[in-house]
């Protein structure tokens, strides 16, 4: 933070992505995954990144998480450059990534055990609180393989929330679920977001999902991955994915998305 900002008492952005570029070198070609991408996210904001496959949105999420590093530019979290993964920024993946050798409770405890200054019974209480929050308090000793797809993602959500990160990074977490389960989870994630005041970045290729969840929808285009447009969705919450107002927004975003699909890679998004 500069002296001017300090004096002006400006709260810094929660996350700042500054001119991030990323190439992937494969045997056949150099893929330009991200080209000079900049993005600011405020504390408590729900931002959805939308674009067709290969537009670099997941790569950007991984870079923000600290799991990958940019070839150019940088990412600041609370004004500090991101040097690696940290429990301030938890990630939820498309695959649940739950550990099969642990039961539900121990999965949620995994991150908590790595958090210092928590006593055994405190950790347990925290884990149980979050399992209750996702509606799985009756399944704390279930094994992962006994849960349905939706329940697994709920446990993954509880596990990501348990160490109390300020930022939650979600990489198409509901893409592998059936429509009914997904709609339930839209409601859940909105109420948890409201209750726990997290900053959420949510990657999806589903425009309607993005319009339903995001305060802001950021539109990516591929080859190379760039931010093309941003939409502010100012509908009241909680939002229903099937509402007419939402359809209006998602149509607008979808039309914009189609405009940026390059002919040679034309592939209709959902």
């Amino acid at each position, binding site marked *: 933070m500069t002296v001017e900002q300090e004096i002006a008492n400006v709260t810094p952005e929660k996350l700042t992505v500054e001119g991030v570029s990323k190439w992937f070198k494969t045997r056949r070609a150099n893929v330009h995954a991200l080209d000079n991408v900049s993005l600011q996210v405020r504390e408590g904001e729900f931002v959805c990144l939308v674009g067709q496959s290969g537009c670099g949105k997941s790569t950007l999420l991984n870079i923000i998480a600290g*799991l990958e590093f940019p070839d150019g530019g940088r990412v600041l979290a609370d004004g500090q450059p991101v040097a690696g993964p940290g429990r301030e*920024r938890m990630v939820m993946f498309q695959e649940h990534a739950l550990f099969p050798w642990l039961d539900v409770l121990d999965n949620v405890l995994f991150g908590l055990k790595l958090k210092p200054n928590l006593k055994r019974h405190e950790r347990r209480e925290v884990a149980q609180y979050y399992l209750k929050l996702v509606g799985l308090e009756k399944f704390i000793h279930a*094994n992962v393989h006994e849960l349905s797809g939706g329940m697994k993602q709920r446990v993954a959500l509880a596990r990501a929330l348990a160490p109390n990160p300020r930022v939650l990074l979600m990489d198409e977490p509901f893409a592998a679920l059936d429509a009914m389960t997904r709609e339930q989870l839209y409601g859940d994630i909105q109420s948890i977001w409201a209750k726990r005041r997290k900053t959420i970045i949510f990657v999806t290729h589903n425009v309607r999902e993005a319009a339903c969840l995001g305060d802001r929808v950021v539109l990516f285009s591929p080859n190379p991955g760039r931010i093309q447009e941003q939409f502010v969705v100012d509908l009241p919450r909680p939002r229903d994915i099937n509402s007419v107002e939402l359809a209006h927004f998602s149509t607008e975003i979808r039309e914009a998305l189609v405009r940026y699909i390059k002919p040679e890679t034309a592939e209709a998004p959902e």
Partner: protein
Amino acid sequence: MKRTLVVVIFFLLLVAGWEILCRKKIWSPVLVPSPITVCEYLNGAIRDGTLWHATLVTMKRLLIGYFLSIVVGLPLGLLTARFKFVEDTLGVLALGLQTLPSVCWIPLALLWYGQTEGAMLFVVVMGSLWSILIATDNGVRTVPPIYARAARTMGSKRLHTWFKVILPASLPFIVSGMKQGWGFAWRSLMGAEIYVTILTGFGLGHLLHYGRELNAMDQVIGVMLVIMLIGLLADKILFSPWEKFLYRRWGTEQG
């Protein structure tokens, strides 16, 4: 309950058939002793302590050798999975040596160690070490990378990731490798004991061998039964709990 009954009845019938055939005197009783004679031998051998003693000697060799194989093989397997250089050197060597039937080590062990406990131990270790190493290596390689990524976002680092994520995630492979290693160790030790007489301990293999020398078929069959029983018990005691755990946690696909 019903299944246990089927098993019990099956074996009772088997023994009864054996007894009936013996009573018909089709074969010489020297070559095919009746189950009663075998039981008499076992009873005698238990009473005078030879059987206990031999079992103890054999189990001691087996357990020490097997334990050594795990202590050495498991970390080496982790190393071959982690470092390309170790994979290309030790990993290739392990693959080669694993294809060698473990009784093939006996002549070498005898020349190196003479007729000693060292030779016995060497054969057991060579029999089980490589399969444990390779199973660990395979297990680590098949761990989905997403586990380590997820763990890292939760603050897990190097050694913590290895011990709390990679190792437990490869447990299905490690357990089946340990089981295979146990089988190899058991087979190679029996081979060594039948083949080699050593003065420091008289194991089950030796009992078997002397049964042949004395033309005591009741002893041969009796000891064979004991060896089988130990194999079954080891499976139940050493591996069943792990397999049950795997089945419970992982579900049907991998357990």
